[in-house]
C-alpha cells in the first residue's frame, strides 16, 4: 500500500499558540480514514496545511506524492475538499457554485452532478444567501463527489445534515471507496466514523494520540459488562483491569480492559452466573477515555 497522505512531526504555530505540536498522520491509498479530535485540537489546521492554505513551520508533509505547499495547483486537480464551514457567494445560486467548483478543479461529470443533486434533494436555482447551513454543505458535497479525483478531504462534512442526507452521504463515500479512491474524513459523529472508516487517527492538542484500525483501537479500551449471579459477588474490584464497579449483592456492572476480559469472566463463574450482557467498546467511549480528564478538568 502506498500512502496518499503522510505527515510526520508537523508543527504549526499562530503567534504564541502552538496549534499543531508534532502531529503524525498516515493515510493509505484506497482507505477511508477517520480523523477525530475535540474542537480546537487542530483537525482543520492540519487539513489547511494539507491543502497548501497554511504553511507548515516544520515537519514533513506529503500529499499524493507531492509537496502540498509547492505543488498546490497540480495536487488540487487530483483532490476535492469540503470545508467544515461552507460559505458561498450570497448572490450565486447553488447550481452555479457547484459548476464553478467543478470547473476550477478541472471539470465535473454532468450526469453525476445532476444525479447527486437529486439524491441530496438540493434546489440548485436558489441563491446561496437563502440556503441553510445543511444546504450549503450539500452544495460543497455535491461539487466534491461530482469531481473525478483520487482523494476526498472532508472536514466535518455532515454536521448540518439530517439523517436521510447523512445516509446519502455515507452511500457516496462507500461508492468512491469501491472505486479505490481515498477519503480523509474529519468528523464528530462516531456512528458515521464507525460505519465508514477503515482506520482512525485521534488527535489532541495538536498531537496524534491514537492511530489504527477500529479493531486495534478497541483492543486498547474497555468492555462494559452487566452480570447477575446466584451467590454474592466479592473481590471484583480487586481484579486487574476492572474499573467502575457498581455492585449490589448479586448484581454488578463494571468496565474491564479488553485484554483482561477473559480473566474477569473466569473469576465471575464461581458466583454462578445467571445472566450476563456486555457491550463492546464504542468509538465514543474510546474518544471519551482520551478526553475524560479534559472533561473532568472542565467540570472542576
Amino acid at each position, binding site marked *: 500500500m502506498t500512502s496518499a497522505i503522510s505527515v510526520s512531526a508537523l508543527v504549526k504555530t499562530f503567534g504564541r499558540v502552538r496549534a499543531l505540536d508534532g502531529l503524525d498522520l498516515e493515510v493509505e491509498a484506497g482507505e477511508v480514514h477517520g480523523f477525530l479530535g475535540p474542537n480546537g485540537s487542530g483537525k482543520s489546521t492540519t487539513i489547511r496545511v494539507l491543502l497548501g492554505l497554511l504553511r507548515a513551520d516544520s515537519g514533513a508533509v506529503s500529499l499524493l506524492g507531492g509537496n502540498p505547499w509547492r505543488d498546490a495547483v497540480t495536487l*488540487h486537480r487530483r483532490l476535492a475538499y469540503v470545508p467544515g*464551514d461552507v460559505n*458561498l457567494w450570497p*448572490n450565486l445560486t447553488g*447550481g452555479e457554485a457547484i459548476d*464553478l467548483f467543478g470547473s476550477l478543479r478541472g471539470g465535473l461529470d454532468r450526469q453525476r452532478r445532476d444525479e447527486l443533486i437529486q439524491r441530496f434533494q438540493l434546489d440548485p436555482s436558489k441563491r446561496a444567501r437563502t440556503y441553510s447551513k445543511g444546504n450549503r454543505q450539500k452544495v460543497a458535497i455535491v461539487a466534491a463527489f461530482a469531481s473525478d479525483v483520487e482523494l476526498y478531504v472532508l472536514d466535518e462534512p455532515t454536521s448540518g445534515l439530517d439523517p436521510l442526507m447523512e445516509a446519502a452521504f455515507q452511500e457516496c463515500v462507500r461508492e468512491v471507496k469501491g472505486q479505490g479512491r481515498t477519503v480523509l474524513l474529519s468528523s464528530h459523529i462516531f456512528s458515521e466514523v464507525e460505519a465508514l472508516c477503515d482506520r482512525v487517527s485521534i488527535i489532541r492538542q495538536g498531537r496524534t494520540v491514537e492511530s489504527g484500525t477500529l479493531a486495534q483501537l478497541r483492543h486498547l479500551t474497555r468492555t462494559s459488562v452487566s452480570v447477575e449471579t446466584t451467590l454474592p459477588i466479592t473481590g471484583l474490584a480487586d481484579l486487574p483491569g476492572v474499573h467502575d464497579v457498581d455492585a449490589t449483592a448479586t448484581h454488578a456492572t463494571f468496565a474491564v480492559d479488553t485484554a483482561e476480559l477473559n480473566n474477569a469472566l473466569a473469576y465471575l463463574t464461581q458466583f454462578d452466573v445467571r445472566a450476563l450482557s456486555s457491550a463492546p467498546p464504542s468509538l465514543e467511549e474510546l474518544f471519551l477515555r482520551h478526553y475524560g480528564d479534559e472533561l473532568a478538568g472542565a467540570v472542576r
Partner: protein
Amino acid sequence: MNSAFTGTGRLARLALRRDRVQLPVWILSTVALGAFARSALDTQYPTEADRLAVLRVAVDTPAVLMFRAAPTGTSTGEMTAFGILAFLAILAGFMSTLAVIRHTRQNEETGRAEMIGATAVGRHAGLTAALVVVVGANVVLGALIALTLVGAGEPAAGSLAAGAGVGAAGIAFAAVAAVAAQLTQSARAANGIAAAVVGASYLVRGVADAFGEVRPNGYTMTSAWPSWLSPIGWTMQMRPFAEGGNRWWVLALPLALLVVAVAAAFALAGRRDVGMGLLADRPGPGQASPALLSPLGLAWRLQRGTALGWGIAIGVFSLVLGSMANAVDDLVAENSGVTGTINDLAGGGAHAIMDAFFGAMMATIGALVAGYLVQALMRPRAEEAGTRAEPVLATATGRLTWLGGHIAVATAGAVAMLGLAAVAMALVYGLSVHDLGGQLAHLAGTAYLQLPAVLTLAGLAVALFGLVPRFAVGLTWFGFALSFVLGPYGALLGVPESLRELSPFSHTPAVPADATAAPIVVMSAIALVLGAAGLAWFRRRDLAT
C-alpha cells in the same frame, strides 16, 4: 413592561460597545477637518479684502460653487461654512448610514438579529437602538464642531448653527438608512442605497449652488430652489454666521424627515419577516453560464455590482460637469478673474480656461475612480476573511491566478470609467461647441493623466493585502483619504508643500500640455512594484481569516 421597544436600552449599549472605536474616530476626524479648515483660513485669506476678492471670483465659477457652497459673506465664519461645511455634512452622512445599517440589516444578514430576537426584546428595539446611538453620535459631532468654532473665536450662535446643521444632516441620512435597511436582504445593498442618497444629496446641493443667483453686492448668493431637496442643502440653508442667517427653523426639515422615515421604517419592518427584504430574491439559473467558470469570470461576477454602481455615478456626474462647462465657456468672455481661480484649482500655472476647468474636473473624477478601485480591491480580502477564498484556492486555482483575476477586473473597470468620463463630458460639451472629435481626444488625454496616480493607490491596496491582510482594509482607506487631504485638498487646507509631495495626486499633471514623462513613469513603476510585491507576499503567506 412588554412593548415593541423592550430591550432598546440594552441593545443601544451593545451598539455603543461595538462602536467604541469606530464612532469616536469618525467624529473626531470630522471635527478635526473642520477645525483645520477654519485655522487654515487665517494664513490663506487673512484679510477681509482677500476674502472678498476670492468670493467675487467664486460666485462666477460654477465648478467652485459645486464643490464648496454658495457664499454668504466675508467673515471667517461664513468663509468656513463656504469652504468645508458641505464636506463635513457628507462625512456625517456616511458615518450615520454605515452605523445604522451595521446595527440593523447587517445583524439580520449574519443571523445575530435572530438570536437577539429570540430573547426578551421588542420587534422595533433593534432599529430604535441603532437610531438612538446614531442620533446621539450626531449630537456629539455637532456640539464638538460648535465648540471648536467658538474656540477659534467665532460667534457662539453661528458656531452652534454650523454644528447643528452638520449634525442634522447626519440625522437625516440616518433616517434614510433606516428605510434602506428594510428594503434589501443584504447589508451591502442597503449600504449602497443609502450611500447613493448621500451622494445624490451632495450633487443636488452642488448643482443648486452652482446655478444660484448672485446678490447685488456681487459676492454673496442665494442657492437655486433644488437646494431645499437635499439634506446637505438644508445644512447650507441655515446660513450660519450670515446676516439674517442662523435660520434655526430650517432644522425642522431634517427632524420632519426623521419622523416620517422612522415611521415608514417601522411600518415596513412590521410587514416583513426577520431576515427578509421587501425586494424579494428571485430564483436564479440552476447551472452556471460558461462565462462564470474561471477565476476571472468569478472575479467579474463578484465585482460587477460595484463597478456598475460607480460607473453610473461617474457617468451621470460627468454629464453634469460637461453641461457646466458650457456655463464656464460663457463666463470666460465676461470675466477674466475666473481664469486665475480655476487655474489655482487645477494645480497652478496658466492655461487656456477650458483646459484648466476640465483638468480640475478630471482630478475629481480621478478621485472617484480611485475610490472605486480601492473598494474593488478590498474584495479579495472580503473573500478571504469570509472563508470563500479557501474552497476556491483548494481547487486547481493558484494564488496568483486568483488574486490576479481580481486585480485585472478592478483595473479594467478603472480604465473603462476614466474613458466613460471623457466620453460623457465630450458628448455634452463637444456637441455644444460642434467639435465632438477634438474634444473627445483632448478629454480622453486629460482623463488618462489620472491613471498613474489611481494605479499607485491600487498598488498600495494590493501590497497591504499581501503583507498585512488583517489591517489591509483600514490602512488602504487611510492611505486613500490621506492622499486626498495631502493632494487635491492640500492647497485649500494649507498643507505644507513637502507633505503634499507624498500624495500621488500632487504629481498628476492637470492637463496634457503640462504632462512630462517623469512623474508618469515613476508613478507607474511604483504601482507595478507595489502590486508585484503584494502578489509575491500573498503567495508566501498563510490564508488569514
